[in-house]
């Protein structure tokens, strides 16, 4: 089976969707029924280390040139499946799948699939043979507006790299960030002024009460973005400046070292399609706290891995933080094993076989 993968980014890029696509392509390369995968990304900058039978073409950043190249490819080569890695690319992918008379496989992640879209997207989805959603929540939100048969929308969760495992904190890093003798609440995520859904402000709001019970607590924010000044202001206004540390962006490769600094990972978000970072934190052995109103529930496995809280309840957030910092945790971080790559790859194999003609 030959697969044409039309994606925003995959190999040689960072971010949640790129990482998901890398793992998906790796899983496909292991599937016995897939001969090769041709990946056409819009963006890629880094080195291109692709699995054996996966080939990634040069990126085409412009939407028009990317669409033109996709069409050109489809006219010259024959594919058995067309994979569409982002809903925004659906009109082009659906057109190409039609051209190839090949089954269309659409991947949906998070907020891009939550709000109703226009007719062209509804029709595109109606032609899809398979839609994979990273979480039950995204699936439910998609089915609320798309008219596709529910049986064609499957859940394919995020998975995590085996590099994430419990480890000792690096003393240099502890010293550099001034964390010695402190109990650390950690959030890793973009600080976007447009989105503001990750819940950093909710945790800052909970800090005064948390400190009353856990005086050595500190909040470490990893990630960068244009919302940082507002969050810094908020910390100042609440007198929490000394307890909030902005560590800036950290490359993926250094994430394990950062996770090793923390005592609890908390992100009471309302906008997660899934939240792969929950898996990485749990795999690092951390107690995890997340929201209960979005895809986070999947990453927390409904409480089996971490503690779901109502992100709009300061009381619940505060209690969960105090409990976690005091060693009273609910959920078993080790239960994150269910999201390990071999199980993901096995599921990908089962899914792609349903597309075999």
């Amino acid at each position, binding site marked *: 089976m030959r697969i044409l993968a039309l994606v925003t980014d995959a190999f040689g890029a960072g971010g949640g969707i790129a990482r998901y696509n890398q793992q998906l392509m790796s899983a496909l390369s292991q599937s016995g029924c897939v001969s090769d995968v041709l990946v056409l990304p819009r963006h890629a900058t880094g080195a291109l280390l692709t699995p054996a039978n996966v080939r990634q073409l040069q990126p085409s950043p412009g939407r028009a040139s990317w669409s033109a190249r996709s069409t050109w490819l489809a006219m010259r080569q024959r594919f058995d499946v067309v994979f569409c890695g982002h809903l925004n690319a659906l009109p082009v992918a659906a057109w190409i799948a039609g051209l190839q008379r090949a089954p269309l496989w659409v991947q949906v992640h998070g907020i891009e699939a939550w709000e109703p879209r226009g007719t062209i997207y509804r029709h595109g989805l109606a032609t899809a043979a398979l839609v994979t*959603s990273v979480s*039950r929540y995204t699936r439910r939100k998609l089915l*609320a507006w798309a008219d596709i048969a*529910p*049986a064609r929308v*499957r859940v394919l969760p995020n998975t995590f790299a085996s590099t994430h495992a419990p480890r000792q904190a690096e003393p240099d890093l502890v010293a550099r960030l001034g964390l010695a003798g402190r109990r650390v609440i950690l959030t890793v995520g973009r600080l976007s002024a447009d989105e503001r859904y990750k819940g950093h402000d909710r945790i800052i709001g909970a800090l005064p009460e948390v400190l009353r019970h856990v005086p050595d607590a500190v909040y470490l924010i990893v990630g960068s973005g244009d919302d940082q000044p507002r969050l810094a202001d908020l910390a100042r206004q609440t007198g929490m400046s000394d307890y909030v540390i902005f560590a800036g962006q950290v490359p993926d490769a250094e994430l394990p070292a950062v996770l090793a600094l923390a005592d609890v990972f908390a992100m009471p978000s309302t906008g997660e399609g899934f939240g792969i970072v929950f898996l990485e934190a749990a795999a690092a052995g951390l107690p995890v706290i997340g929201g209960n109103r979005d895809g986070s529930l999947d990453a927390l496995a*409904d409480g089996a891995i971490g503690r779901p809280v109502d992100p709009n309840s300061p009381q619940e957030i505060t209690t969960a933080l105090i409990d976690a910092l005091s060693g009273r945790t609910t959920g078993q971080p080790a239960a994150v094993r269910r999201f390990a790559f071999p199980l993901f790859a*096995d*599921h990908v194999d089962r899914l792609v076989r*349903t597309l075999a003609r």
Partner: protein
Amino acid sequence: MCAINGILAYHYAANPIDRAELVRTREHMAARGPDGTGEWIAEDGRVGFGHRRLSIIDLSEAGAQPMASADGRLVVTFNGEIYNYRALRRALEARGRVFRSRSDTEVLLHLYAEKGEAMVHDLRGMFAFAIWDAQHRTLFLARDPYGIKPLYYADDGWTFRFASQVKALLAGGAVSRDPEPAGQVGFYLWGSVPEPFTTWAAIRALPAGATLMVDRIGASEPRRYHSIAQVYCEAETVARSRHAPAGADSSAEIRAALLDSVRHHLVADVPVGAFLSAGIDSGALVGLMRDAGQHEIQTVTLAFEEFRGRADDEAPLAEEIARLYGTRHTTRIVTEAEFKADLPRILDAMDQPSIDGINTWFVSKAAHELGLKVAVSGLGGDELFGGYPSFRDIPRWVRLLAVPSRVPLLGKAARRLGQRLGTAADLSPKVAGMVEYGGTYAGAYLLRRGLFMPWELGQVLDRDVVVTGLRRLGPLPRIAGELEPHPRSAHAKVATLESALYMRNQLLRDTDWASMAHSLEVRVPLVDAVLLRRLAGVVGALPQSASLEAKASLARSPSFALPARITTRAKTGFTTPIADWLQDRRPTGTLAVPRHAIPTTAHWSRRWAGQLAAA
């Protein structure tokens, strides 16, 4: 006859199933099965079944469910009756299969072991069941050809859940309560929620005559194994190849087929009673029950003070039929006070909103009071024998309006004009849609059975619900879809639509919730796939003028034929004075409160719909 439910954590990321949830869902259906409870959970905790039992066949513990095969590979939870289970069992035993009980449930296990999904073609009866195959790790669900027994499911992407009732799935606590616009729109269009939709987005009905398989990636799309239109088509093909019109021997064939169905429907280890009205269908069935060898028959008729001395009063004629066949007969009088006292329980038991079912509630209540566990009903006679006015009206409308309805824009213009004139002249809103809809069977059927017309939905629902709901539901394509592969005769077309839509979504569903709330199993010998196959050619091939003759054949089929007073009585249906009783009742709930109050001058069924949606 029971209630079934189950949970399967099919996805690798899903948690093991929650036993407390399994029990909550099951116990919500306690009334469906007061004689026993059962549950089974696989050792790995990934799958579990629940069962509430109303014991009717093999009352011993050997018939208890969920039931596992001797080798432990298969487990079944089953709601319904397999009327040909004895014949199936004999055939299975002849092939060397060893049985451990006398129940029809065990037949399902052996049959699935032998034939897999294809087993459904061998079954005669009403059924909804699920079979877990531990070897292949698959869950198989099936529902009878007509959809007599209900089966609902919810697949959230990780975990699959099923149950006999929608409200029971919700009671489990793990199923989303997002509303389904197609279900809401469907309810206002027809007065019942059309399958596969329910009023909840997360819950679907397994369609009648369909099967479903759940494996490690989730639920498949339902697969239809039976189509009423197909049966009529095949009968027409056979008739054409014989070049023989339905002739003199049709009465004999009708009688033989009916007696065979009634005989099958009497299989039970408890007494089987009957609902009796003043109509042909139930009367003929009671006569045939006697012919089938049942001499002790408890019959029950519903009567209302308000109808005493009027043509609607069924009691005097029903009593006459009871005397004719020597049944032990009870006339049960229902009063407005009782109706009002029962209404909260009725609304609670009503699994999905429906504008009908009150009559079945009370007649089932009466049967239960008499100690009956099983009662035969004449439901389905009008669909099979062409008893509704629609068999006359729809073909006539289609003939008259086929051409005008094809003239571009004429239908819409006529409707707009008609809407204005209609309001002024106090005409039914449907009149306005005659030209636009009346020219096709699907359109004419929508007019005939519609509660609100599509253009009126904005009066009762929000605009985006109407737009999404209509788009998803596609009322006309949905009706037309039931007609595939297109039987030729007008009778076959209308019979198909009435059976596959009105009877399935309204009558059978109402009968299920209203009877099961009183722990009563209702059996419907006139709703039987084998009977349909035998009679589709006989009745369906009759010229329209002879359709009435078909109903007369039903009346004549018992050895003691029904008297002329019954057969010539004008049709009233099994009615209740509910229209009068509904005055002053105000909406009390939250489901989909109509945007504007439905005017008090509207037809009672429309006002009732508004109240139900709000309940």
